[in-house]
C-alpha cells in the first residue's frame, strides 16, 4: 500500500527533500572519502530521476515516503515542487562532472565537483538553504536580456 498522494503533483511534504538531502550528503561524503567515481555516478542517476521524472519518483523521496513519513505523523507543511526539482538538476550537473572526473583519471576535478555538491546538499539538509534554487536567478541574470 502506498501512502496517500499529495493533492496535486506539484507540491511535496517539506520534510521529504530535507531528508533526501541528508542521504545525499552521506552518499557524497562516502564518495569523497573513497574517491569512488561509481558512487558519484549513482548519485548522479538519483539526481536525474528527481530532476526529470519529478520528486515523486526520486529514490530517496520514495524511501522517505514509504519508510519514514508514516512514522512521523501527518504532513504539516507542503512546498512547491519546482524549486527542489531545479536543485536536483544543479546537483546533477555537479555529480556528472564529479563522476566524469573520477572515472576519466582526473581525481582533482572529481573531488572538487563532488565536494561542491556535498556543500550544497549539507546546506540544504542542515540549514534548510537551497543553494540550487538561489543559483537560478544568478544564471538567468547572466544571460542577455531578451524577453520580447
Amino acid at each position: 500500500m502506498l501512502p496517500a498522494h499529495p493533492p496535486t503533483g506539484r507540491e511535496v511534504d517539506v520534510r521529504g527533500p530535507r531528508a533526501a538531502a541528508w542521504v545525499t550528503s552521506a552518499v557524497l561524503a562516502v564518495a569523497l572519502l573513497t574517491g569512488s567515481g561509481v558512487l558519484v555516478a549513482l548519485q548522479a542517476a538519483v539526481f536525474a530521476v528527481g530532476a526529470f521524472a519529478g520528486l515523486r519518483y526520486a529514490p530517496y523521496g520514495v524511501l522517505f515516503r514509504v519508510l519514514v513519513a508514516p512514522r512521523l505523523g501527518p504532513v504539516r507543511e507542503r512546498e512547491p515542487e519546482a524549486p527542489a526539482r531545479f536543485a536536483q538538476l544543479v546537483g546533477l550537473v555537479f555529480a556528472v562532472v564529479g563522476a566524469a572526473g573520477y572515472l576519466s583519471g582526473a581525481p582533482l576535478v572529481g573531488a572538487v565537483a563532488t565536494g561542491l555538491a556535498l556543500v550544497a546538499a549539507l546546506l540544504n539538509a542542515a540549514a534548510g538553504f537551497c543553494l540550487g534554487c538561489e543559483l537560478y536567478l544568478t544564471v538567468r541574470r547572466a544571460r542577455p536580456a531578451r524577453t520580447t
Partner: protein
Amino acid sequence: MLGVALALTAVGAWWLRRRDGAVRAAEGGQERTATAVLEGLGVRPGDAELTVVQFSTAFCGPCRATRARLQQLQATRPGLAHVDVDAESHLDAVRELGVRRTPTLFYLDRAGRLIGRSSGTPRPEELTRLVEAHVAPAPARDGGGL
C-alpha cells in the same frame, strides 16, 4: 577534501545566519536609483505608508512563505502595501537593483524613500518591527506623528 567541504559548509551556514533575511540600509546614492527603477515597474509608494516590493521566481521555496507572511501582516495593518515582482520577466530591473537572490525585498516609505532591503526569508520579528514602526494599526491617520 571532505574536511574542506565541511569547513565550507560551516562558513556558508554561519554567513547565512548573519545575513539571510536581515534588513540592510540602502547604500548612499543607491536609494534614488532604486526608487526610480521600482517606480518604473509600476510601484506607487505614495499609495501606502509602507510599500514592500518582493522579487520572486518560480524556483524559490521561501518566496511563497514570505508572501504569506506579508499578506498576514496586511490584515492588521491596512497601510502596508505588498507588490510581487516576477524577477525573470524584469531582468533589467533585477540587474539595475543588484538583486542576486530571491526573495529580495525593498521597503519604501510613502515619500518613496528606500528604508532598506533584505534578501532571503525575512526574520519574523524584524519584519514585524519594521512594519509596526512605519504603519499605524487599523485606519491609517494622515500626516503628523512620527
